[in-house]
């Protein structure tokens, strides 16, 4: 036990066992975003394949009190499997314990819960290579600046382990490039503040060459501010995929590159681990999912890997156009 | 003074009842008012006079009974309806908008619009015209001292009453119901109001006047309708009764001169 893995599969007989067990599953997420939707979608597909009935999905608006309520409400349904991302491990812990007591197998996404023991309390954690993603983002910055330039950082100023770790991994990795300097750092509490922050940052430091933002949705505001203030050459690097920023990237705008994990795969893995645990199989403590570094060249491929869906129509169009534009280059 | 068309019934109320939840406030009110007549509506405090006024004004819907205007049965279910039927009311509580200025109150819903066709369509106000008009109207009722731009809340009690009166009178209505219109007025203003009422009735308007001042009633009114605990107990020519007799009727006592049944002649 206590081992780490990059994948987890069920044999055909195991799958058949699961199907025979007539299991039910619920999901209790921290909030909502395209990313978590993709995880949910992956999990639902896998549950369906395994004949498991999904009975409820909740999202807590990033509010621990709401998540506690959600979890308490789910106890009434007595699900066999619960997939969850905890907003705040400390305050949600008692409610998880209540569910676990009634026989639910818990699979966690990203955030561990301190004091929980693998096997007894939870079946496993599926997570990103957070450190790797931060480092990849630093690589992207270096690539965008040709190893030399000034960088601004707009980070999520809240107690939220995944983004906190990713951001600090980025900062640490950037130190390896001696000619790249972080000249300004500003924290945001809500993602709709980033336009204001970026605008202010650019007014104070006209010569910033690249801005790193904690995640895609927050980066939209940064790009808006850069666009309006006419900073065409300032590059933006972030995490996750979003249509809007990908279009900007494809059109050669401010968006330079992003680091994307694989939410669909994460969902599938969680579902499988939950199913395995529910029929009494051993499950890995950690299951880590790979990520992709996304730039203009590999947008379509990365999208497919991350979400396992068609590329959105508008993005397809834009990509086609920009390829035509690229020909004479 | 010449009364015109006295025989035309302008307003007729037949067996009107009003309940508030289970309290029966109007218990059968019947009376008529002819064109050009000044009819007094008398009654003790709480007799139901203002409730009746509210029914005529479209503020309250009677539970039962009929109201006929110029001989036609009407359901007066909103003040707008009452207005369209040519009824104008001075409410006992004045019903002014205290936060708005005197001119604004005088012309609310009767704004004078700009003469330019386009602006007129937009509802653009002609503030100058309204102010000039307001000044003229105020002078007519002894309200010269009233500052047009002051919010009504800053006027004295009597000044507020003058504003409410002018507003009602200015509507050009055929039936004007006045609920204690001179309660807060000084003697001089009172006299002006009396003169105004005489003028209006001589021009053919029907006036229903509520007043606790029997002297005023005797001077001004043709007929008196007396309410007692929500019922009409008398409908008599003012000249035929003394003030003492009226007082007796108002406090529910029968009196020698007039029997309560006498008024049934006026019914239907």
């Amino acid at each position, binding site marked *: 036990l206590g081992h780490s893995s990059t994948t987890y599969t069920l044999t055909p007989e195991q799958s058949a066992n699961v199907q025979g067990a007539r299991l039910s599953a619920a999901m209790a997420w921290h909030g909502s975003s*395209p990313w978590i939707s993709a995880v949910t979608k992956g999990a639902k597909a896998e549950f369906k394949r395994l004949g498991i009935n999904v009975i409820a999905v909740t999202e807590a608006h990033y509010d621990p009190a709401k998540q506690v309520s959600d979890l308490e409400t789910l106890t009434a349904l007595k699900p066999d499997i619960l997939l969850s991302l905890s907003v705040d491990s400390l305050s949600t812990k008692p409610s998880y314990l209540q569910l676990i007591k009634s026989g639910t197998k818990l699979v966690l996404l990203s955030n561990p819960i301190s004091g929980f023991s693998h096997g007894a309390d939870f079946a496993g954690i599926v997570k990103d290579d957070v450190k790797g993603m931060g480092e990849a983002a630093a690589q992207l910055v270096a690539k965008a600046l040709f190893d030399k330039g000034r960088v601004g950082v707009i980070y999520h100023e809240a107690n939220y382990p995944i983004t906190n770790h990713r951001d600090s991994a980025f900062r640490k990795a950037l130190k390896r490039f001696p000619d790249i300097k972080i000249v300004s750092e500003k924290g945001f509490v809500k993602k709709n503040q980033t336009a204001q922050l970026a605008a202010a940052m650019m007014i104070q430091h006209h010569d910033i060459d690249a801005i790193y933002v904690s995640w895609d949705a927050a980066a939209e505001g940064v790009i808006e501010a850069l666009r309006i203030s006419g900073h065409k050459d300032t590059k933006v690097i972030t995490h996750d995929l979003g249509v809007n920023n990908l279009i900007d990237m494809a059109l050669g705008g401010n968006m330079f590159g992003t680091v994307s994990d694989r939410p669909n795969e994460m969902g599938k893995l969680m579902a499988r681990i939950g199913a395995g645990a529910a029929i009494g199989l051993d499950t890995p403590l950690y299951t880590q999912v790979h990520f992709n570094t996304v730039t203009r060249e590999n947008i379509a491929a990365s999208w497919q890997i991350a979400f396992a869906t068609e590329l959105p129509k508008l993005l397809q169009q834009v990509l086609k156009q920009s390829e035509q534009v690229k020909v004479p280059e | 003074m010449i009364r015109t068309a006295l025989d035309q019934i302008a307003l007729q109320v037949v067996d009107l009842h009003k309940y508030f939840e289970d309290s029966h406030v109007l218990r059968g009110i019947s009376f008529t008012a002819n064109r050009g007549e000044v009819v007094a509506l008398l009654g003790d405090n709480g007799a139901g006079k203002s409730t009746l006024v509210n029914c005529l004004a479209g503020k309250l819907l009677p539970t039962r009974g009929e109201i006929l205007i110029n001989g036609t049965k009407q359901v007066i279910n909103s003040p707008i309806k009452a207005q369209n039927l040519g009824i104008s009311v001075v409410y006992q509580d004045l*019903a002014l908008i205290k936060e708005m200025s005197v001119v604004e109150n005088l012309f609310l819903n009767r704004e004078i619009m700009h003469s330019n066709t386009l602006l007129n369509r937009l509802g653009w106000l002609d503030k100058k015209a309204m102010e000039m008009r307001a000044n003229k109207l105020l002078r007519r009722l002894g309200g010269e001292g009233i500052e047009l731009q002051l919010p009504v809340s800053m006027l004295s009690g009597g000044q507020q009453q003058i504003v409410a009166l002018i507003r009602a009178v200015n509507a050009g209505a055929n039936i004007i119901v006045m609920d204690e219109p001179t309660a807060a007025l000084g003697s001089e203003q009172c006299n002006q109001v009396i003169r105004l009422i005489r003028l209006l009735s001589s021009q053919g308007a029907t006036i229903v006047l509520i007043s606790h001042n029997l002297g005023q009633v005797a001077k001004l009114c043709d007929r008196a309708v007396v309410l007692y605990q929500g019922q009409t107990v008398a409908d008599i020519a003012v000249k035929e009764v003394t003030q003492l007799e009226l007082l007796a009727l108002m406090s529910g006592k029968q009196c020698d001169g007039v029997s309560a049944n006498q008024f049934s002649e006026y019914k239907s």
Partner: protein
Amino acid sequence: MMKLSAQVTANTLVYYTFVLTVVVFTFVLHSSAFFSVENWLNIVRQTAPIVVMAIALNVALSAGQLDLSIGAVVALSGLIAALLLPEYGVVIASVVALSLGGAIGAFNGYLSLRLAVPSLIITLGTMVFLNGFVRYLSGLESIPILNKPFLALFGGGSIWGVPTLLLWVLGIAVSVYCVFNYVQLGRHLLATGANVTAARAMGVNTIKVRIIAMSLSGFLAALAGLLYAGRMQSARYTLGESELITVLAAIAIGGCSLLGGKVSIWGTVLGVWLIGILNNGLILSGFSSDVQMMMKGVILIVAVGITFRARKQ
């Protein structure tokens, strides 16, 4: 304790200017970037949709109605426009979005009067419903907007050096100001808000007036949605969602009563700008966001306190 006139007063302006100056000087000590033209234009652009939202709420409040759904209408309008633009072009997309806003407002007003339920509750219901609906409609994704004419009309560009967004703000503020000061409708809105019973007794069609107030509010909120979408070159389901409290604050600071019957268009505009300047100045000052929030609270109280005292004298 006497209520003030329901009239629109312009003379309070002076005091806002005063407060603004105080606030400005607070930041001068910290940052010189604050005083660049670029930064001021930046503030104007960022606050533009919020100003329009605040004016929308002002219109509803003038008639004594509270409209909590404006945030959700903003999101819906932006989203609808973004979805329609690629196929139908700027005219149809904007007209549909704006009409939808007006229709939702009218629906709110009608329902609130029909059911005799306070508008607060009805619009809360609409808000929650629409919040769910825009999430469903957008799939939580931002919808990009590439339509050039739309971006030129509603976006972050400039005409003769003046940001389009500023023109919108001023245009709307002036129009609404005129309605309240020179047009019959404005009088009826204020009368209804100040005292429904009396207004009704005076023959004002208070039901119609309140439905108009809510429709106008919805329409203006939808316009704010287009301005947001234009500025961000995309529409998101979260647009306008978290601005409700800013809008309420700006209106209260601006001197408009939440009880109806009063309106203060320029006060509202300045109220939003004041909050915008505060945010901007605090960001430029480089404090951590904890300290920024604390200072924002203190400055808000102090600035408004000064304004109110000054106004009283």
